[in-house]
């Protein structure tokens, strides 16, 4: 049996399993709320893995390992920070968000903003920013998957794209949050197994931990420590951005906080998330450094993982690891897709246009919306702009800038007002876009910013200033204090 056939067999079995899961949960979903949130129906491991699998996309697995192969330990602090992202998010946002979501019985994160800032304008602003960011994000993930099919299976890009995209959209449409969260758990376990096999094999092939670092330091002397390849401000920015600012930058993950019905389950979910992400990022660093030694002249660094897999592992094991990478891509797409669908149905159709969405009709509408959004992203992914991976980073920065401080201050600071919340979202988003445009005007690229300072640091700083300053000069929000701040 050829290598391609063996990869193909593993992937077909894997995808069949996912579709089966979608069909299984299809029969258990009864309402719109069940479909989008499944409150109280998922355990801590499922919630924790789903949070993390949503945050760590497949393109970032391949991209992060590729970038770390080139930049070495200049980039590794971003990995540690990413592993800390669930810690920041659960502690500062999760506990309070879960309790308030239970009090107001909401479906989406925009519902929380609407209740806290007592304004549909707040919810619509948040919905608009998220939807603008989501379509290119889904399209980029689909493109990454299409490329994996192209490289490993020799399949034409469009065939791989539609096969992969069709499966992920189908099981999301059929099974909703329960299917999404359970597939995230399975995919997370496969990711752990895959990296647990690849990391020691790659380090050993590179001569062992110490010898590997000696060789890497000779081949890439500026990358064996924190500074040498990139400016200090770039290294520091990436350390700060990828951890703390995931609070606002990853609303699809944050939605998971609304699922558990008790505090103990939420905290246990955090333990799963932190352990999962820490393990993956430690392995990613080791694989990247080993890749730098074993594949010093690889033309396309993002292909470090699949190239090491095909060089070092038997095809069946390699197929599992490739399935894991595709699984990471899927778990990001399905979660974003589900959140986008819930925003359109709940925050635009029902609340803005007064649409009727009883259990049956709401469920049908949710599925059709999810299908349409998935289809749109698929169309964008057919011929995406060359800079689409930078559009993903811009989308993350945009949401981190718009939401981090309106979420945090909205939940913890009683004095935050409607005007302050909206000003924080709009001001943060505009500042972020401005900083990208200014960087492009000066350096001619979206990945080179003025002074090396990330837009995802500038935007939130402006947002914080806007929330505080505007809240101070506008009347205090008496009507929401009871729900959000009375014990």
């Amino acid at each position: 049996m050829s290598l391609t056939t063996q990869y193909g067999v593993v992937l077909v079995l894997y995808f069949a399993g996912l579709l089966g899961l979608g069909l299984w949960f299809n029969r258990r979903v009864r309402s719109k709320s069940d479909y989008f949130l499944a409150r109280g129906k998922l355990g801590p491991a499922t919630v924790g893995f789903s949070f993390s699998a949503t945050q760590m996309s497949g393109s970032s697995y391949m991209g992060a390992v590729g970038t770390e192969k080139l930049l070495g330990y200049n980039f590794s602090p971003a990995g540690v920070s990413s592993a800390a992202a669930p810690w920041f998010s659960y502690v500062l946002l999760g506990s309070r968000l879960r309790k308030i979501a239970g009090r107001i019985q909401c479906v989406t994160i925009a519902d929380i903003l609407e209740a806290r800032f007592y304004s549909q304008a707040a919810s619509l602003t948040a919905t608009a920013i998220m939807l603008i960011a989501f379509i290119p994000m889904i399209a980029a993930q689909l493109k990454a998957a299409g490329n994996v099919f192209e490289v490993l299976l020799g399949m034409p890009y469009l065939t791989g794209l539609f096969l992969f995209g069709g499966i992920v959209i189908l099981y999301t449409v059929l099974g909703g949050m329960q299917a999404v969260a359970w597939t995230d758990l399975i995919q997370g376990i496969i990711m752990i197994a895959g990296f647990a096999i690849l990391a020691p094999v790659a380090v050993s092939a590179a001569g062992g931990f110490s010898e590997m670092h000696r060789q890497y330091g000779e081949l890439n002397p500026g990358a064996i420590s924190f500074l040498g390849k990139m400016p200090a401000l770039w290294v520091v920015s990436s350390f700060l951005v990828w951890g703390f600012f995931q609070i606002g930058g990853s609303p699809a993950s944050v939605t998971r906080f609304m699922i558990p019905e008790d505090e103990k389950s939420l905290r246990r979910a955090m333990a799963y998330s932190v352990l999962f992400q820490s393990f993956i990022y430690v392995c990613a660093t080791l694989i990247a450094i080993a890749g730098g030694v074993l594949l010093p002249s690889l033309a396309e660094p993002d292909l470090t993982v699949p190239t090491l897999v095909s060089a070092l592992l038997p095809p069946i094991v390699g197929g599992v690891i490739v399935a894991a990478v595709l699984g990471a891509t899927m778990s990001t797409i399905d979660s974003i897709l589900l959140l986008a669908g819930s925003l359109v149905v709940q925050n635009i159709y029902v609340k803005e246009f007064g649409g009727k969405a009883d259990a049956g009709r709401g469920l049908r509408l949710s599925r059709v919306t999810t299908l349409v959004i998935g289809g749109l992203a698929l169309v964008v992914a057919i011929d995406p702009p060359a800079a689409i991976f930078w559009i993903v980073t811009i989308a993350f920065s945009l949401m981190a800038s718009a939401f981090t401080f309106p979420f945090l201050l909205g939940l913890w600071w009683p004095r935050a007002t409607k005007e302050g919340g909206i000003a924080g979202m709009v001001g943060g988003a505009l500042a972020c876009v401005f900083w990208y445009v200014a960087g492009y005007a000066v350096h001619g690229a979206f990945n080179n910013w003025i002074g090396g300072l990330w837009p995802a640091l500038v935007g939130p700083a402006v947002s914080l200033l806007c929330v505080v300053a505007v809240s101070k000069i506008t009347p205090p929000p008496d009507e929401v204090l009871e729900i959000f701040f009375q014990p």
Partner: protein
Amino acid sequence: MRESLGTRLPLVSITLMAVFLVGGTLALLVDWPEGPAHLDWGVWLVVYFGYVYVVAASFFYVKTGK
């Protein structure tokens, strides 16, 4: 019955987060001496010990809620 919201910030965890962010940032800017396995002590501290710190701090919150 509606669940109590609690009004107190998890101050110990917030302090640990500040130590992680400020300490980590400062550690990135120091010129560290070489340590074991051809890596400098800064890499050992921020990258490898950093994961241990994050896991330990998270478990502290899981256990205490503080």
